[in-house]
């Protein structure tokens, strides 16, 4: 019997230990972009001769706070980022033009061992510096007034949706960067997705108290299907989905909607991945996911497999039809830190994953 992705192998480890990495996206098939806590985006060209390790090529500078999520438009021309600096920024994803500059790849904390008993920041190692092209944003959209975690687009590249910690959801004309409409949810938007036809926004709302106490009923997590035209809730799934979701994604063909438990770690059992019927919101199946929390989800372009990563330091592959775990990639970094983000190249041949210590790894995916 074929073992999907059984021959996958680690190709590159790309150190960027400046701060923890929050999001990843491929630009086409051979460039990967990573965004971090410091508000930086770094782009590597992966198309290097055999035996060579890719070096970072571009540094996208402009955010003044943590970047929470990035995506690349379907035509691979634009990279879009959302941040805790309250802005949405557009970047030229293809250009190699810019001012020459450098980046220190290891100027952050090494969190391991920095405990109560440590009295200072560990001595920094010798700086590892790389030459890069510095690029600035094309657009700077300031329509939000809070941290933005929700970011999704339609597969035709026409509609963009963002959501923030004030519960504001904004629908944009993506090419023009123009706000089309907005509506108010009741709590923080932890993650959202937009259906491929652009008619529905599925959004998880969660105010992340560690412990939930009675008297805070207004902060109970919610999950809604919102009608994009009217900004009204079309379906309330809050009774079925009772936790905050770290990742809500529609498959490009619109067949599946998936949601991963775990935007904030609580004492409750969590980390499950729900597979939902986008039409009626009914749960089709549930994957056990990642104990303690699922951090990110990505559909493989084959339309059959879902990749996930989580707080258990694992990357896992699930068969959407059978509901079975196809394989896990083991712990790629023994640092006691989460794997926070994953992305798959357009052709489905490369997988990128990032841990919270700042390392990006790239796997070659051989589907069979």
């Amino acid at each position, binding site marked *: 019997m074929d073992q999907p992705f059984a021959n996958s192998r680690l190709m590159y480890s790309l150190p960027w230990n400046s*701060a*923890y990495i929050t999001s990843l996206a491929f630009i086409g098939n051979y460039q990967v972009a990573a965004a971090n*806590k410091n508000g930086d985006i770094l782009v590597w060209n992966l198309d290097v001769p055999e035996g060579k390790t890719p070096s970072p090529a571009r540094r996208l500078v402009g955010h003044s*706070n*943590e970047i929470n999520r990035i995506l690349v438009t379907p035509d691979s021309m634009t990279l879009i980022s959302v941040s*805790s600096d309250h802005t949405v920024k557009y970047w030229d994803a293809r250009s190699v033009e810019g001012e020459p500059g450098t980046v220190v790849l290891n100027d*952050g*904390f090494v*969190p*391991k061992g*920095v*405990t*109560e008993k*440590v*009295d*200072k*920041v560990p001595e920094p190692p010798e700086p590892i510096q790389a030459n890069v092209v510095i690029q600035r944003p094309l657009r700077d959209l300031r329509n939000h007034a809070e*941290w933005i975690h929700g970011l999704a687009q339609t597969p035709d590249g026409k509609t963009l949706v963002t959501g923030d*910690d004030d519960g504001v959801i904004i629908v944009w004309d993506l090419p023009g960067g123009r706000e089309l409409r907005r509506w108010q949810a009741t709590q*923080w938007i932890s993650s959202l997705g937009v259906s491929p036809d652009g008619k529905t926004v599925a959004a998880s709302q969660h*105010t*992340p*108290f*560690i*412990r939930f*106490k*009675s*008297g*805070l009923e*207004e902060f109970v997590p919610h999950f809604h299907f919102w009608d994009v035209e009217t900004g009204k809730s079309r379906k309330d799934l809050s009774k079925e989905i009772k936790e905050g979701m770290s990742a809500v994604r529609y498959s490009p063909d619109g067949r599946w909607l998936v949601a991963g438990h775990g*935007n*904030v*770690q609580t004492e409750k059992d969590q980390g499950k991945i729900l597979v939902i019927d986008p039409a009626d919101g009914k749960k089709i199946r549930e994957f056990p996911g990642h104990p303690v929390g699922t951090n990110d989800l990505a559909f493989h372009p084959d339309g059959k497999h879902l990749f996930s990563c989580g*707080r258990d330091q694992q990357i896992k592959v699930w068969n959407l039809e059978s509901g079975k775990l196809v394989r896990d990639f083991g712990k790629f970094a023994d*640092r*006691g*830190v*989460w794997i926070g983000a994953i992305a798959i190249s357009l052709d489905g041949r490369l997988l990128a994953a990032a*841990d*919270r*210590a700042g390392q990006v790894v790239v796997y070659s995916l051989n589907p069979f």
Partner: protein
Amino acid sequence: MKMNSINNPCPWHQHRLRRDLLKGAMITAAGWALPNWGALSHSRTIAAEAKRAGKRCIMLYMEGGVSQIDTFDMKPGRPTAGPFRPIHSTVSGIEVCEYLPRMARHTDKLAVIRSMKTKSVDHGIGGYHMHTCYPSSEKVPHAEIGAMIAKYCDNPESDLPSFVKMGPAGCNAGSGYLGPTYEPFTLDTDGRLPGFANPSVSQEVQDRRGKLLEFMEQQHAREHPARPFAAHREAELRTIRLMRARKAFDVADAWNKARDRYGNTPFGRGCFTALKLVEAGVPFIEIGHDGYDSHNDNFPVHKANLKVLDPAWSSLLEDLQDRGLLQDTLVVWTSEFGRTPAINGQGGRDHFGRAWTVVLAGGGIRGGQTYGASNRDGFEVADKPVDEGAYFATIYKAMGVDHRAVHYLGSRPIWATPDGSMPIPELIG
């Protein structure tokens, strides 16, 4: 200075110690295997003075360990900073977290101690230490600060409890060696009395039942003079008194008008109830706000909590001031410890006692200042370290309570703060 001269062979406090030891020994010799519940003459004098001053204290306790770098000791531009941004406050030079915008308008009332250096850096022991001034390892039933203030600042004529706790508190030492009279009266976070406190019978019937109960208790007490009985009797009496005074806890109508300002949360309501209890004369109220133990996801967790804290705390200060109560009401914002400057691999901060922050405001405190400092990245105290003893001594001083008040557990003397503890004069208004 030597104290063993002929004219002054030993210092006065040693005389007192001997006398008190003797008294304790005599009591013990008389067969009372009981603690001496602190009823010494000099204690009564202190209590009379404190009561005359009419001091009150509200303690806002951030259970789990609140992050100093994400609240009142921010490190912008440093690798320990995190995503929160500082904002200016009404006092030049005091910046606070952007998620404390309303508290930023009250920094003229605040004394921000940025140099707490404490020893007990886990929840149980930290909670105990920051409530009693002593490490739990001493195996002595120390009294919580609330019990101590209740003892010295209570109005004995009042039917209300003298020490009220609402919500999670992180310490259950209670009145310790001070005895059952000063045990905390514990409510849920929102300050509501339990349902059984709203009886269905008339006041007259309640009073008759109370008198009957007292009579029976007195009869029983003559034959059973032991501590468990005393504690039980005390509880019964307090219940009767509470039933008379329960309206002080009934804030429902007023809360409807206040909840938008305080925030419609249990902690918000707890702060509002505390205001009402202070108005009614309760000397010590502690309100717990839990969920700060953010080893993971420190920033969203703190942000969520600060959005609850900010309206509640600021409204409490505003209302105390508007009612003319702030000058006699000390408001303490504290925790069992702070959180690490370094951000770990789970986006969290861990327990940290080496350099953290508490805030004092109101009665007896000189506001509009910071005291002490942590170093550039927040890993060490850089200036004016404050230990548990100095912190407690300062609170006691502000409350008009002798920080070296002594009580006895049997014949063993126990002081309110350890030897050498001194109030911080710069903080006292």
